[in-house]
């Protein structure tokens, strides 16, 4: 009897040891890679494999400081100047009852922004002719390619609305981008335009400043200080964010003497979308 008990005890101990060792191995297998990734996370160095940066656990976390609240003190001097000057002129200037044919160009930000823009156009008797969404595009694509030229030639808009920059917030080759911005400005020629700055999800390295300096006075809307609701990618403004964004752009237009057309807030955003949508992908076709 005691031999049997002792045998059973031994078996149980054996099973327990086996089970314990497997669990310890499991703990190690789960924990070791995560510890390594955390060590890498808190390390200032970054590793690359085949030119691809190995991302860290929290690399892309957006700090609260990066979320910039709309604050007039943070608006650029040039934009402020335009608004202040135009506020003074607001009473003097008379809104002309003009119907614009609008060409909306830009990077993926146009994808959602085109809906509130369309609603504004419908409510104010403008026509949104076409939208050109160039995914992953930067000012380099628009400046150095002939896409914008051909679209302007084709649609002959009376107003060009342009938004770009979200894909180049980290860009540091600013001289090259300044050259591209100037080339794009030259393509627009004498056609009235509104240049919208990117809806920053983080601080940029100077791309907004380049756009602001390239655009004529009062033609550039700085979006970076707006606090916008973001889509699930945490970068692009969401549908709700785009509506707020468009309202801010419209306020800018109404307060400006450069744009003397009607651009009142629509009663509904649920408007049928009729404009022609053209899409391209800069990752496949950079255009120059």
């Amino acid at each position, binding site marked *: 009897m005691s031999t049997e008990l002792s045998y059973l005890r031994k078996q149980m101990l054996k099973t327990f040891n086996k089970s314990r060792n*497997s669990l310890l191995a499991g*703990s190690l297998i789960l924990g070791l*890679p*995560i510890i390594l990734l955390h060590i890498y996370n808190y390390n200032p160095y970054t590793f690359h494999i085949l030119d691809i940066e190995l991302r860290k656990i929290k690399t892309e976390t957006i700090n609260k400081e990066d979320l910039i609240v709309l604050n007039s003190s943070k608006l650029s001097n040039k934009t402020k100047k335009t608004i202040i000057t135009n506020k003074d002129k607001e009473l003097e200037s008379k809104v002309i009852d003009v119907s614009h044919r609008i060409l909306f160009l830009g990077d993926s930000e146009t994808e959602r922004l085109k*809906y509130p823009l369309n609603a504004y156009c419908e409510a104010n008797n403008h026509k949104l002719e076409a939208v050109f969404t160039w995914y992953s595009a930067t000012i380099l694509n628009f400046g150095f390619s002939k896409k914008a030229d051909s679209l302007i030639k084709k649609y002959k808009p009376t107003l060009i609305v342009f938004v770009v920059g979200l894909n180049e917030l980290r860009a540091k080759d600013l001289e090259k981008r300044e050259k591209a911005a100037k080339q794009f400005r030259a393509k627009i020629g004498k056609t009235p335009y509104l240049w919208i700055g990117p809806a920053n999800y983080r601080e940029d390295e100077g791309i907004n400043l380049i756009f602001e300096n390239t655009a004529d006075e009062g033609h550039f809307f700085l979006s970076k200080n707006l606090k916008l609701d973001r889509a*699930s*990618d945490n970068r692009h403004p969401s549908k709700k964010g785009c509506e707020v964004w468009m309202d801010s752009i419209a306020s800018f237009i109404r307060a400006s003497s450069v744009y003397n057309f009607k651009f009142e807030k629509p009663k509904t955003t649920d408007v049928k*979308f009729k404009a022609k949508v053209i899409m391209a*992908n800069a990752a496949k076709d950079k255009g120059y």
Partner: protein
Amino acid sequence: MNKLIADLTSFFDYSLKEPWFFTEFSFLLCLALFLLLYAFFTPKSPWKLLYLIAFSLFFYYKSSGPFLLLFILIIFCDYAIALWINRLEGNKRKTLLVFAIIYSLSFLLYFKYSNFIIVNLNSLLLTKFETKSLFLPIGISFYTFQSLSYIIDVYRKEIDPSKNILDYGFYMTFFPHLVAGPIVRAKDFLPQIQNPIVFDHPILKESLLRICTGLIKKLLLADFLGKYVDLIHEAPRGFTGLENLLAMYAYSFQIYFDFSGYSDIAIGIALMLGYRMKENFFNPYTAENITVFWRRWHISLSLWLRDYIYIPLGGNRKGLINTYLFLLITMLIGGIWHGADWKFVFWGVGHGLFLVLHKLLPKPKENDRQWTRVLGIMFTFHVVGLFWIFFRASSFASAFDSIHQVVINTNLTELIGFCNVRPEIIILLFVSAIIIFLPWKWKEIIINRVISLPLYLWPIIFLIALQLILQFRDSTIEPFIYFQF
């Protein structure tokens, strides 16, 4: 160093807005540390249970903060009620059961459905009752169903009530199934407390594989597909029929990867701790009809609805018409369980109607099995996908917009342009379709091959999988879709 200290301090904070998921790297690290000590408890030690309960409660606290107290209160009350029911007989027993069911459901009704009821009452009776801003305690739909099944099983004398609050507390709080299922039955789980499975290397590899595939399904596939789905469903009318159609496929895949990924991780972790939970999914999109689909999709919920609603209503014992009616009622409850919204009711009833329709149709002949099976799979997948549109859309209008675009404005020649603009979505849909429609036999072969890999390779497999996830994921992790139910 300061960053590390700040991260460690904030770790003990709870966040109602950002629950602590299985997919958080901090959770996985915590789990590894937890296992380190867990390994030294003997299988039947009460300290092991206490240790597990403490960790489970901490896990719940991280996601629901003060609602942890409500959860503990519910556990104690359920435990006492079950013991009381067990002592009574006859009408008293029945009355107490009715009271227990009403009491259990009252929390769910208050937190999940009160605003829905108020809004509908206001529009029906033209009253002006104010809605309240209520936080839905995480996992309440799941643990309410679990506690109900326990009390009803005790009433039916299918199980003895737990004599030990620790055992019952452990069953209810066990963190792998706590917040989003699978809905575990007491009769399956409680006996395991005294007889946990013997943990060895093959089981370790099985559990690691489940966790790894779950993470990849959720973080790599579901979240990526979700971004495209979100975009289309924000304004379905602004996108072509083809884009809406692909969004329907994408969401069908997304919800499967999301929820089955969660279940995989939950089952994998439970296995590591020595407990086996039943499968919650079994190749559901390869079902040749809607009845088979519901035997393979969210199995724990389907079985719960069958055992605690459909059969008690009368099942198929009260004539054909009543059978269909009971089926519709069951699916309606299943629909509204997912959320307090008419679109979920519509989704549930829609599935119920198709289940009835399937029962009405003649069964295919044996000779026609092969081609009817393929057609059946395609048809069932599309019917399920169509109903997913209502499940995902922000409103009925948005769902109908999407369907309108699919029916009226689908032009397959646009596929070339779509491939040019969004190649990553096409690749992802293609890969997802292969994973989803691969026959189970082939999947088994792959699983066995991976499990046979030597143990020393597993940290490397895990590291590669985690780094891959990091390379593709964005800054925030999308919550599991079923967290909100």
